[in-house]
Each structure stands twice: as C-alpha cells, then as structure tokens.
C-alpha cells in the first residue's frame, strides 16, 4: 500500500515531492522478507568449505568421514559436481568470473577459493561438517603482495568501466617543463569490501522443469541469464526472484552461492539454500582493488593546467580480468594541452575484484582531487577557484560537448552554505581544545548513462494501475521512485499505482548498477504509462482483464545524441584531528550536486549522504589486510574491517542545484554513486588544512597520523 506524505490526491506532481518508501511499513515491522527468509519445505542448507591454500591444487577432499556426520546429505566438490559452461558472454557484455563457476577443476587460484559445498538438513549440521571436512592440497608458492608504487614490471593496460586503458594527447614532458608550478605525487587506496548488511543468500529449487532461485541480487535477469548459460538451460526455464535486497554496492551479481545452490538442488532434488558467512564474503563476494596512483600536474602561474597525467595501478586475480579504473575521473574533470591517463592492472594470487560503489571514480577522485588541492596550495589559489578556472568546454578526451555541466553552480551553492568564504587557507591554525580543525573541498562527477529496458503498465478494472518492470531496489528507493514516475505519467495519485519489481519473469531491464537503474527504468515506465494513458483516453471502460501496454526503450536509448553526460558535485568537509592520539573526526559535511531531475527528495537525500558517508568510511576506516604468509585475509570480519558507525558520522547534508538537460527525454541522472566521489579527498584535504600534513594513503588511521606528526 502506498503511503504518500504529500501530494496523494493531486496528480502530476509526484516527481519532485518527498514520498516515504512504498515498502516502508514492511521494512520497519520486519515483514519484508529477504532472500534467505522465504520458507520452503524440505529445505536443505549448503555451507562452503574454502581453500586454506593460496595457490596450488586440491589433492583430495576427504568427504567420507563428513558424509557419516549427522544430517549430512552431500559433499559437492570438483570430483563430483555437475559440469557447467563458462565459455559465454553475459548480459553485461563480459565473460563470467570463473570464481562463480565452482567445483569445475582442482586448481586453487587464491585463498578462500570454494573447494566444497557441504549440504545438510540443518545449518548447524552443515556448518560443523564443512568445518570438519579435510582437504589436502598441493601447495605452490604464492604472490599476494601489491607492492608500493604506481609501476610494476608485470602490469598491463586493459579497457575497463572507465573506458580505454590508456588515453593521451600532447607532449607531457614539454608542458611540465614549461609549467610555472608542478606537482608530482603518489597516492594509494587499500583493498575495500562492499559488506552489504545482508550477506549473499540464494535458495534454488526445481519446480517441474523450471529452475527457481530466490536470491539477493542487483538484477534478476542478469543472474538468470548467466545461470541459464552456465547450466545450458532454456532461458525461459530459469526464474530468479529478488524482492528485497539488503544492500549490494556492486557485489550482488552472479556469485558462487547461486551456482552452488543450483548444483546442490539438482543433485539432491530438493530446495537448497546457500548463505555466505560474513568471513566468506571477503573472498567470495568481490571487492575493490587496492590502487597505487601517480598524478603529475603542471600549471601556469594562474593555475591553468598545462599538463595532467594520472596513472592508476590495481590488481586482479590470475583467472579473470577486472580493472579498477582510477584514472577515469581525469578524463571528465580537467583538460590540459598535455593530458595522459592510464589504467593498469597486475595479476596476483588473490580473488577477483569487482565493481564497488563508484568503481574507478572513488579511488581515482581521491588521488586527483587531493592533487588539485595540493596544486592550489602551491599556486596560492583557492581550491574552488582553481577548479573553476579549469572548467573544460568539451570532454577532455572525447572532445564531445557536455549535456550539462553545473559544477561551478555546485561549488557556489556549497561554498555559500558551508561558509567557505571565511576560510583562512593556511594550515594548522585552528584549535578547539585538543583538536586541530580544518576544512577541505573536492569535486565529484559520475557518468549518467542509460540502458535499454522494457516495462508493462496495466490499467486494472478497479481503477488502479500495475506497473511491471524488472528493476531492483537495493535500498536506493527505486520502487518508490518508479511509483512516482508512473503516477505522473498516468496522471493519477500515487496510491493508485503499484509497482512490481525484482523478478526475471518481468522481462529485460537494466540492473541496479552504474547509477543507471532509475534513469533507465523510469524511461521505460514513462513510455509504457504515457501510452497507456493515451489508450485509456480513447476507451470507454477497462475490461476485467485490464488494459496492458508494453514499452521497450532500446531504440530510444540508441537514438540519444552522443554527448558527455555526467552528474557533478562539490564536496565539503570539516574535520578535527587530535595529533596526540591520531584520532580524526569528521565534524560536518556538505555535498551539493547537479544530478538532473530529483525524483524523490526524501530518498534521494539518503542516496547522496549515504555515498558521502562511504567517503568518510573510506577516508578514515576501511582497509582489508592480507597476510603475506598465508595469502589470506587478516581480520576478515566487521570487527577487523571497520566501516563507519553512528559515532563516526556527524551531520552530513546533501542538496542539489537545477540541472536541466533539454536534450534528454528522461532528465533523470543516477545518484547512487556520485556521493562517494571526491568525498574522501575532501576529508583528506581537510586533514591537511587542520595539521599541515598531507595524507596520500588511505585510510587516515590514528597510527598514520601519529607517525606523520604535525608540520613543524
């Protein structure tokens, strides 16, 4: 039932008006069921056994003893598991990460590799049996060390989510030599993990000839399509549902748990649920690669860039290529006569990294926006003014015009509200008791793409409307946003619209990813709903079966003019640093964004501030530690891997400026990722302003602050 806070009875103005979540009551009463919470009779529980070797071969899996344990039904491993096909290209245009295709061979490419699934009648029995399972390995020497520095002898460049591996124009050395001010600095970010609060969970069962999977994912058809290809099934014979998703952040695509659950359900002919433990997620759910980045900037005396070079090195596994495109933001943010960017990757005996909230942009913007701040200091120019002076007219790499670029407006509005004008740029001057205070800023951008989607809008005979779109609401508020979009397109109050999502039977649609979900889905929903409204205007009555109109935006998306389409933002942070203890606290934060039309201000604010809070967490807390000796993580849990908690997060505010794009048929841009972009740099820049010390390696932990001291 829709609960509109405002605008329930007026029509046509739902978009832009705050609206509580349509599933909110279910979420606050505990009634909303997530993937691991749907009951099935005869349900069995699968528990992974993971490799303790970091590289080598499985010599034997001693399953006999385990099969004698109470309740144990099966032990799946490379010697007995069903074979799957991984020679295909998935919905996102990429081959599958072989990490998901479990138990196909005896090779062990990293510690934490799934070597077996123990299935038992209860989860307690499965856990104990999986822990008791003895696996013998032939171990080989491993290398998990991502050495310092942005160069590596084995590094190579590949295209990634941020575009081509390498871009370049102009004579870098000549422009650097001719620059009045030059900055050359190296930055690093650690391995970071998504850690959605809901662990990955899937239940698989065969229903007649059809495979049904109840899962927690960011795109049901994405997962269904991969499962169909992997198990050589007719796509129509696979149904994946994912109604409520407890966070994803890029980690919830096809993963080992769904594949293992399908295998076990197939072998045992009964429903099987596989849930990752929090510890297992550290090696099975993907992660953000650590990065080592080098930024070289050359500017004239007025701060105008003559040279920009950004190179970013990240890691991938030995079995799959994924590149963290840290050099991506430079391709959008700043131009220079000499402009060079490069993303390189090195293979190590580690799990495959993946998309994590603002892949490329999050670590890349830390380096680039820190470097801009350093350049501003060297030039003696206000960091906002430096950025305004370097606003490019065209895409620095593409040469295309921007569909809209309201970064200066974000800075103007943000500076006004943050009180930037009163700022003394000199570092290390402000004190409040034991705390040194400082402020910092940074710019943000994120690609505003769209992908084809289909939707269906039905006028029911009772006067209500049902919209079906295979969207995923991973906490973004997409279900509510699409309700508002549909209501306006239908010109009806929101409480007459119900939106069905999260079911692969609903047909093709964009996944919740790349900040493209709501933009892409809204497009398809609007198209179907508007046509339905036109049809209804011509018909006298709605028949009992209703009237349904379907849309497909493939042609419309394809017809979109080639432009640089991005959202932009300005981040501001104030921090307090106790240099005697090394503690850093963010005192306030403000982000002002230009992100197209804001559909639901209530949930949109949460998307922006949630991203900014990820920035706080990235700047100060998050770091996964790998033990060189075993090749496995050290402290792989939520006590060892710190994410920001309540006490770390002060008043964080987000707002937005007008960002119209007359050329764009939807006008909506994504807002799920831009909040983190630049946020860590704003915090780090504020730490410099407080202490006079630059922290170029994240997180800015107390030990690092203590060791760095204060500028004399």
């Amino acid at each position: 039932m829709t609960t509109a806070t405002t605008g329930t009875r007026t029509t046509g103005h739902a978009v832009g008006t705050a609206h509580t979540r349509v599933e909110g009551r279910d979420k606050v009463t505990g009634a909303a069921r997530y993937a691991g919470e749907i009951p099935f009779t005869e349900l069995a529980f699968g528990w992974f056994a993971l490799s303790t070797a970091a590289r080598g071969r499985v010599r034997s899996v001693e399953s006999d003893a385990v099969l004698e344990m109470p309740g144990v039904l099966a032990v799946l491993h490379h010697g007995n598991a069903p074979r799957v096909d991984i020679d295909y290209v998935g919905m996102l245009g990429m081959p599958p990460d072989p990490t998901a295709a479990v138990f196909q061979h005896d090779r062990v490419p990293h510690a934490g590799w799934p070597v077996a699934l123990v299935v038992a009648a209860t989860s307690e029995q499965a856990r104990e049996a999986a822990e008791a399972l003895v696996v013998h390995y032939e171990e080989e020497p491993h290398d998990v060390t991502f050495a310092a520095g942005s160069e590596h002898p084995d590094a190579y460049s590949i295209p990634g989510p941020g575009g081509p591996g390498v871009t370049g124009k102009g004579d870098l050395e000549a422009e650097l030599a001719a620059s009045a001010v030059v900055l050359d600095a190296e930055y690093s970010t650690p391995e970071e993990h998504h850690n959605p609060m809901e662990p990955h969970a899937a239940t698989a069962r065969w229903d007649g000839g059809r495979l049904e999977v109840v899962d927690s994912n960011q795109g049901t058809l994405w997962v269904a399509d991969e499962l169909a290809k992997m198990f050589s099934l007719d796509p129509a014979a696979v149904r994946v549902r994912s109604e409520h998703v407890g966070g994803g952040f890029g980690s919830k695509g096809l993963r080992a748990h769904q594949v293992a659950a399908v295998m076990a359900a197939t072998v045992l002919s009964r429903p099987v649920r596989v849930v990752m433990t929090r510890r297992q997620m550290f090696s099975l759910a993907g992660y953000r690669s650590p990065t080592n980045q080098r930024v070289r900037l050359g500017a004239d005396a007025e701060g105008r860039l003559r040279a920009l070079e950004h190179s970013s090195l990240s890691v991938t596994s030995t079995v799959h290529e994924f590149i963290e495109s840290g050099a991506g933001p430079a391709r959008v943010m700043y131009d220079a006569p000499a402009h060079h960017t490069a993303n390189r990757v090195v293979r190590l005996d580690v799990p495959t990294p993946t998309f994590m909230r603002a892949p490329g942009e999050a670590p890349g913007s830390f380096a680039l926006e820190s470097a801009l701040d350093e350049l501003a200091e060297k030039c003696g120019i206000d960091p906002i003014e430096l950025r305004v002076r370097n606003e490019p007219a065209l895409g620095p790499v593409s040469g295309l015009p921007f569909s809209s670029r309201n970064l200066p407006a974000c800075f103007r509005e943000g500076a006004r509200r943050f009180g930037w004008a009163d700022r003394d740029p000199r570092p290390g001057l402000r004190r409040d008791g034991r705390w040194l205070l400082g402020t910092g800023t940074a710019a943000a951008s994120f690609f505003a793409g769209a992908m084809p989607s289909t939707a269906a809008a039905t006028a029911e005979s009772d006067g209500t409307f049902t919209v079906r779109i295979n969207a995923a609401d991973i906490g973004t508020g997409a279900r509510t946003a699409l309700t508002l979009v549909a209501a306006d397109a239908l010109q009806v109050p929101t409480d007459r619209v119900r939106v069905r999502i999260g079911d692969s039977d609903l047909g093709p649609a964009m996944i919740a990813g790349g900040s493209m979900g709501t933009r892409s889905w809204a497009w398809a929903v609007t198209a179907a709903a508007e046509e339905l409204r036109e049809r209804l205007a011509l018909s006298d009555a709605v028949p009992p079966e209703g009237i349904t109109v379907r849309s497909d935006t493939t042609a419309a998306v394809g017809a979109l003019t080639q432009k640089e389409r991005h959202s932009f933002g300005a981040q501001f942070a104030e921090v307090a640093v106790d240099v005697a203890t090394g503690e850093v606290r963010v005192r306030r934060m403000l982000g002002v964004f230009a992100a197209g039309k804001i559909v639901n201000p209530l949930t949109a604010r949460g998307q922006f501030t949630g991203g900014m809070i990820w920035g706080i967490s990235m700047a100060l807390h998050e770091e996964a530690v790998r033990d060189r000796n075993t090749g496995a993580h050290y402290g792989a849990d939520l006590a060892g891997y710190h994410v920001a908690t309540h006490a770390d997060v002060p008043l964080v505010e987000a707002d937005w400026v007008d960002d119209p794009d007359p050329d764009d048929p939807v006008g909506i841009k994504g807002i799920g990722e831009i909040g983190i972009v630049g946020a860590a740099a704003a915090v780090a820049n504020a730490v410099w302003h407080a202490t006079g010390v630059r922290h170029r390696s994240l997180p800015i932990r107390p030990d690092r602050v203590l060791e760095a001291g204060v500028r004399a």
Partner: protein
Amino acid sequence: MATASPSTYSAVTLNINGEKHTLTVDHRTTLLDALRERLDLTGTKKGCDQGQCGACTVLLDKRRAVACLQLAVAAEGREITTIEGVAEGDRLHPVQQAFLDLDGYQCGYCTPGQICSAVAVIEEHAAGWPSAVTDDVRPEAGPPPLTPEEIRERMSGNLCRCGAYVSIVQAVARAAENDARTGRTAEAAQDAHDAQGTQGAQGAQGAQGANHEGAAA
C-alpha cells in the same frame, strides 16, 4: 560420572512477543537461528553472526541484546521481544513511525535491529544511564540530555552500510521527543532539528528541496 556424552538437544519453551513457543533445539542453535529458521520470525536479521553489526538486535527482558550470540537453549525463561512484537497491533511504535516518516533506512536490512536498539536506547536514557560521550558520569550530574551526539554513541552498536545514519539519528530523536517521560529529550530533539539547519536544510530548488521536516508533514 557425567563424562558420558551429554545430550546435545533440549526441549525449550521460548517466550517471544508474549507467546510461548515450545520446540526442541540443537544446543548449537542461536536464538537468532531459532527465530529465523524454526519459528518463521525472520524480521530479526543476520548480518555477521558474530556480534559485530547489531542487525540481530532483540530485547531480552526488555534490554537490547544480539540474538546471534545468545544460545536459544539459554534464552528459556526470558522475555524475548523481536521487531515483530514492537508495534501494538496495527499501530506502529513511535520509533517505527519515525523511521518510516524520516526515511531512517535504505535497504532495510539493519532496520529491525536499529529500531529494537533505539527502543532500548530511549529506555536506557530514561533510566538515567550515562554513555561513553557523557561528560560527567557521576550520578550527581544527572542524566545527560539526549543530544544527537549521545544518540550516535548509544546507537553505534548498529552498523548501517547504506549510511542512513543521519536520518536514523533524526528518527530516534523524534521518537524520544514524543516519549512522554522526560522533557530533556524534547529539548535534545530540538537541538537535532537546529543542527540540521546549520548548513541550511532548505533545498536549492524549491519544489525538490523539501527537507526532512517537510517530508514528514
């Protein structure tokens, strides 16, 4: 001698949300798994299963606790309240209503734990308990006002990876304000409201910039 293998199962009666449930549990079964897998009370969430996230927060004898480290067999005889038992029938608890109105969540997975925790925070504060950010813990100093800083510290055992902390704190402040027992909490909630305005809460665009208060109007 009792070194003979002990029984590893027991029949227990659990008092949950005012109802008695009798079941036989494997001693290894935590209260969390008993709720989720045996009793179909899936509102209590499993985020880490190690006491490191707070998603499984329930009330035991009216005090908040993590169900993942509580063995079900050891919970016999205790009054257990889960998120399913927080509301009074169809009427949401003020904390639930405030979370709904102020968007104190995103994905919703940590939400039942946050709400159970917040219900207890208001109780603990009403009982005069200090916290780690209370300046003066001596009883003579009196109970601290429930400022946003106090709420944040007291709620810190509940992680929210979506980062909905700002609106969660506002929701707890509002629920505390509506709690009749103390006038100080209302004052604190006012502080939270005032703090909200320090950077100007109004949107730059009139129609799109409705602030949290407007959202709940």
